[in-house]
């Protein structure tokens, strides 16, 4: 999408505020949202900084409720939240001009052509009419609907509607884009196209992305930070980039016996060691220690290494472990 120059149309205030540039993407403190007697979100306290954040959790975990709350659809019953440094309650109006939202369910204006629909959404976000029209064309080309942009949105296929939803979320050039199940209902090609678009937005580095999804592969391929929710509570918050880096030399070792003394010797080399069970160890190697050093230690201690494999925590491992955790614990 083309960048817009400053000072267009009936300009009255700049879209960017200096305060929001250095602020965390999302910062919540004891956030709680209640529907009737049921708490949909409880004591959510997080500070997310990633370029692309994935919200994970089973159905009913509170992912969509969290997104809706951050968008100002629900008023928090407890706690507070800031998005891009803007308080979601007191500065909701300012925040919404800087945020794009692609809902999970089909959402459009079926009687309008895609260009009119996306332009309307751009104008409602504060773009001057001429700029909104220009950017509507660009956004539709960007998502691959350039040739169909004069068709009514109601006549689109499911995949095209998903792309039109993405286009309306991007048209006003937001600094944060919430994507709720963006690959829902897409065929493999459409899904890959959607993920490629999201990745290209992320890599450009101008906008940050929050993806709510139950598809771990989608989140893993796009996000650098994940927040796992369960029954309205945060059960895990991980920086995937750091996990990937730290897991580069992560080893799972099975020894015949003497795991205690072997662990002590390996730790003396400067490795992080955890005894995971009888005869099983998890070892994170520092840069200057090699696998050969471990074999040398084993030889000195007369410990037989029966199995040694490089392993990396997948997002699935993180997610499944998080789901096993009791409330509140990490």
């Amino acid at each position, binding site marked *: 999408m083309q960048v817009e120059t400053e000072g267009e*149309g009936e300009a009255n205030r700049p879209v960017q505020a200096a305060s929001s540039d250095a602020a965390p993407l999302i910062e919540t403190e004891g956030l709680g949202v209640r529907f009737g007697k049921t708490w949909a979100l409880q004591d959510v306290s997080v500070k997310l900084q990633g370029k692309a954040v994935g919200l994970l959790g089973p159905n009913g975990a509170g992912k969509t409720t969290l997104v809706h709350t951050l968008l100002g659809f629900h008023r928090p019953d407890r706690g507070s939240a800031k998005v891009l440094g803007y308080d979601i309650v007191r500065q909701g109006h*300012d925040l919404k001009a800087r945020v794009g*939202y692609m809902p999970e*369910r089909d959402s459009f204006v079926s009687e309008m052509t895609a260009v009119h629909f996306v332009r309307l959404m751009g104008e409602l976000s504060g773009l001057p009419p001429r*700029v909104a029209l220009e950017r509507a064309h660009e956004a539709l080309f960007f998502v691959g609907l350039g040739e169909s942009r004069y068709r009514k949105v109601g006549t689109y296929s499911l995949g095209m509607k998903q792309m039109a939803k993405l286009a309306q979320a991007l048209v006003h050039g937001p600094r944060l884009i919430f994507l709720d199940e963006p690959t829902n209902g897409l065929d493999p090609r459409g899904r890959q196209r959607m993920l490629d678009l999201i990745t290209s937005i992320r890599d*450009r580095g101008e*906008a940050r992305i929050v993806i709510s999804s139950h598809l771990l592969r989608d989140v893993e391929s796009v996000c650098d930070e994940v927040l796992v929710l369960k029954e309205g509570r945060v059960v895990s918050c991980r920086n995937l980039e750091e996990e990937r880096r730290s897991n580069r030399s992560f080893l799972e070792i099975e020894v015949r016996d003497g795991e205690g003394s072997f662990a002590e010797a390996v730790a003396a080399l400067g490795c992080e060691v955890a005894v995971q069970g009888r005869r099983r160890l998890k070892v994170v190697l520092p840069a200057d220690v090699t696998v050969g050093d471990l074999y040398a230690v084993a030889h000195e201690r007369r410990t037989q290494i029966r199995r040694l494999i490089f392993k990396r925590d997948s997002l699935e491992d993180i997610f499944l472990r998080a789901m096993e955790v009791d409330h509140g614990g990490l």
Partner: protein
Amino acid sequence: MAVFDQGYRVYRGALTPAAGRFLILARYALRVAVKSRRTLVFLVLSGMVPLIAAIIIYLHHNAEAIAILRIPIAEILPIDGKFFLWLLRGQGIAAFMVFLSAGSTLISADLRDNALPLYLSRPISRGEYVLGKLVVLLILGSAVTWVPLLLLFSLQTSLQGFSWAFDHLRWGVGLFVGSWVLMILLGLVGLAISAALRAKAAAEAVFAGFFLLTPLLGKVIDETLRTDWGVLLNFVAVLDSIWLGLFGLKASSDVSAMTAWCVVIAFGLMAAWVLHRRIRAYEVVG
């Protein structure tokens, strides 16, 4: 425009003023509303009564025409408060037809398309959303009610002289205020029904029934419960009472002007409550 190979960029230009942003909604909704042939037909037909009235006013001041036609028009149809009241009543019916055609889908279409999360995730409040939709009805209603009626009042003034307008200013004010009471009541009730029912046919049927069948319901209540309160459901009588009061004419119905105002305000508030409940970005189930 070769833009497909360019990457995403944040918008760094300036934003339009937030205060009038609901008018964007109105502009787009108005475009959709006037695309309906039925609405256009009603709008054209609504011009017939003012056209005939303009001819009558003209004839009143054209002695030659009266002599040729040999109709004692001043005796049959005097230009007085009742004349303008009848015009208001006629245009009220026309406004009802236009609102019935254009109003029933204004919100229900957005609900069917699940478009509210898209609107409300932008810097626009629920109140501004409703206001944007209401403005569409007020524009269409104005084109049918107070604009042509005040033009007729101005025509009579230009032919009779400004002293006539000063002497009968109350009728001009009555036309303006009476039109706005009608438009706001019809608009709010129409939008509330549109928000409550997603199906267009159902919304139209309920809107028509609300104004056409409630007088019957009121009569049934009066007969069965032996009360006089049923008349409060008769919106024609309620509005007529307000209009008579505005024109300084004697009330012909059982509803006093004060009671009629209270009924209108009560129904306006009920409609606003329905809109408050229905216009949300999400639905809480269970």
